[in-house]
């Protein structure tokens, strides 16, 4: 059985790899420029193209021309992106002035913004959710506010936050905070409110104090719903952090994507997008570990 599982795993991994190879080849084929051919062009045309830098004299063949590799106007292929990737990660921790930071620094910046905002929101969301879940009155009082606040895009808060705190990084943190607050509150409140009555009854029988009841019954009982809420928050925060960085123009991988657009460095943009994907994947894997730790079987 174990051997079968291993074989199966190898098989699907191999297929994934084949798919990647296929995509890279297709991408390369679609983006390769046809090599320059002078057929049908007048001498004037060729002179004009050389002046504009589209073509250069072939160093190997006297009197012949080839495409200028320095000048790219088409979508970059995987080879160019690969070169860019190597370039970015050959020196990931350089700092040249305020804007030109290495990819390592940008990732660190985004991770720190994300971590602070997400952790703050998760802790406050769980606390708020527990109170709302335990008290029907509090739920009824706060629910209208929550219903209005919940659908507001976290980015809509950004100008107001920036005006209030006057600092780019703090604003990004608060945007992440706003993005990851409501689903956690809602998930926790739902979980706390729907703990099986039996568990609450046992807590009553055993005369638990409020703290023991919270730690032994309420939080573990609500854990699956809390984790579900936190997961939604997590996705929402990951979506919000990139445009927040783009708009604030401080630093970070989201910012980098926009800067590469300003530089018209399309390969750089693709690298930046890939980095966002990988960072998200790593964060998601970390959350998965935490979620597995707090889940239980009925």
């Amino acid at each position: 059985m174990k051997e079968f599982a291993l074989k199966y795993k190898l098989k699907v991994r191999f297929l994934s790899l084949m798919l990647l190879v296929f995509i890279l080849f297709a991408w390369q084929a679609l983006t390769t420029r046809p090599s320059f051919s002078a057929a049908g062009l007048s001498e004037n045309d060729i002179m004009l193209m050389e002046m504009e830098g589209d073509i250069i004299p072939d160093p190997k063949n006297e009197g012949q021309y080839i495409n200028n590799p320095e000048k790219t106007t088409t979508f970059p292929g995987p080879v160019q992106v690969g070169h860019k990737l190597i370039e970015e990660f050959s020196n990931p921790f350089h700092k040249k002035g305020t804007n030109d930071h290495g990819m390592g620094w940008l990732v660190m910046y985004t991770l720190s913004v994300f971590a602070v905002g997400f952790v703050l929101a998760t802790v406050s969301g769980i606390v708020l959710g527990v109170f709302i879940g335990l008290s029907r009155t509090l739920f009824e009082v706060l629910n209208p506010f929550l219903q209005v606040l919940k659908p507001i895009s976290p980015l809509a808060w950004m100008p107001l936050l920036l005006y209030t705190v006057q600092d780019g990084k703090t604003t990004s943190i608060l945007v992440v905070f706003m993005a990851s607050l409501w689903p956690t509150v809602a998930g926790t409140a739902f979980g706390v409110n729907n703990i099986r009555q039996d568990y609450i009854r046992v807590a009553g029988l055993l005369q638990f104090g409020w703290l023991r009841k919270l730690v032994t019954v309420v939080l573990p009982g609500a854990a699956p719903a809390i984790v579900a809420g936190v997961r939604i928050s997590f996705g929402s925060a990951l979506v919000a952090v990139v445009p927040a960085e783009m708009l604030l123009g401080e630093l970070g991988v989201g910012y980098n994507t926009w800067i590469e657009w300003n530089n018209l460095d399309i390969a750089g943009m693709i690298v930046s997008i890939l980095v966002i994907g990988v960072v998200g994947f790593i964060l998601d894997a970390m959350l998965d570990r935490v979620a597995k730790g707090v889940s239980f079987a009925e």
Partner: protein
Amino acid sequence: MLNSTATIEPENEPENGSDNESQRTTEPASALKVDYVTKEFPVLSGNGTATNESFCVFEEVKFNVRKGEFMSMVGHSGCGKSTLLNMMAGFDKPTRGAIVVDGKEVTGPGLDRMVVFQSFALMPWLTCFENIRVAVRQAYPDWSVDEVKAHTQKYVDTMGLTGTENRRPALLSGGMRQRVGLARAFCVDPKVLLLDEPFAQIDALTRGVIQDELMRMWEAAGATVFMVTHDVDEAILLSDRIALMSNGPNAQLSRIIEVNIPRPRTRAQMIESPQYTRIRNEILKFLISHQKSDLADKV
């Protein structure tokens, strides 16, 4: 010997307050007293909100459970026997009347009245040992960590749970889970033990073994037990007296049957015993007659 089964008809006519008082003082041995308890639930309207009308589950139920006695209640679904047990536990309040344990009226749940649930109600995130320990810790807050641990281990061993201490309930069979439930209830040495169809979710073969263990534990602990069950054989095997409820709504306590079969009882002995057959027939007749009237109502 043939007439050893006595049937006691409870006084159904309500008495006045002074009579009530005098009766309370003449029966000092009762550990649990159900005193003219009536339970009504509000009738829900279509949108789920309570209306002014109410629906009476049972009315004027009155009986005592003597100290150290094992009493069962049998009746059809909907007669309110679980509701009554929940009120004894303090999860629910009577609409009229009171439940008195050891001279004090029940106002909420407490460690003196432990419940064994049909659904086991073990915390799935705690191991077996922790599920029992948490009760010991609450019952004996002054004990040291080692004392709590030793006491917990004692009950783990008595219930035959040795070796499964570190397992989560999800990995155990229904029988093993209810052993944990029983250990959790017995380990705090409660005055009254309330069993809410404790063996309904356990397969028939395991049920017998756990019933024997429950009897052994009950005899050793000398606790007062009130059990709600559907299983007539189980009720006869375990009980000193069996209370029969008529059908709800407006259910009433029809009669209390004394089970005069000597202890220790074994299943094999029981089957041979003529008393057993008579009691069983009497209860079954009662249940069937109520079933008929129930059907007649519907037709």
